């Protein structure tokens, strides 16, 4: 069965510092991968999706970027964090052509 690993689970970062969140999946090959953010009082917002190595599509212009260096690895990054980047970041794995399953998430607090 497929599994999704996200780390770190929790982090507190100062404004202006860099960010790297990592997602790796197991049990599947050539998956579609997603980054969503869940902020307080808001629904899950799609940030990026990737259909293959090096292929990234951005849904929302922002302070973040994503990369997919390997088939089963998806990384979310920022060079300089803003307070508004705080939130719960979820990695999604698309299975069977349409169902998206989520990892346990990474809590980011920017202070």
């Amino acid at each position: 069965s497929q599994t999704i690993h996200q780390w770190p689970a929790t982090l507190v970062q100062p404004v202006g510092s860099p960010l790297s969140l990592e997602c790796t999946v197991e049990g599947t090959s050539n998956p579609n991968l997603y980054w969503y953010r869940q902020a307080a009082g808001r629904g899950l917002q799609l940030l990026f999706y990737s259909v293959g190595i090096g292929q990234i599509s951005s849904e929302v212009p922002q302070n973040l970027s994503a990369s997919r260096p390997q088939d089963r690895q998806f990384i979310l990054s920022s060079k300089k964090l803003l307070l508004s980047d705080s939130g719960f970041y979820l990695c999604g794995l698309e299975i069977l052509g349409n169902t998206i399953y989520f990892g346990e998430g990474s809590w980011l607090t920017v202070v």
Partner: protein
Amino acid sequence: EDQVTQSPEALRLQEGESSSLNCSYTVSGLRGLFWYRQDPGKGPEFLFTLYSAGEEKEKERLKATLTKKESFLHITAPKPEDSATYLCAVQALPGAGSYQLTFGKGTKLSVIP
């Protein structure tokens, strides 16, 4: 633009008191409607996918139904362990190679013993 509205925002039920959660949606062409359960501090857990009006899916005390404009999640004789936030999401007909979801803000369900 695809939109999903869930109501109520919060719902408190006594154990055994059945009720329904609503998900209203607008989408250019619906490929699927999804229900997820999310516990505090956790990622969403997939429950159901519905594809066409009239379709129903069941899992334990939960039953999801779909019409052309909304979906209902019926909870029969809920237990305290059913307490969670329930998320609804729509998936539009495919474009650009992905099956991205548009989510509602969720309904927070509390079941009181």
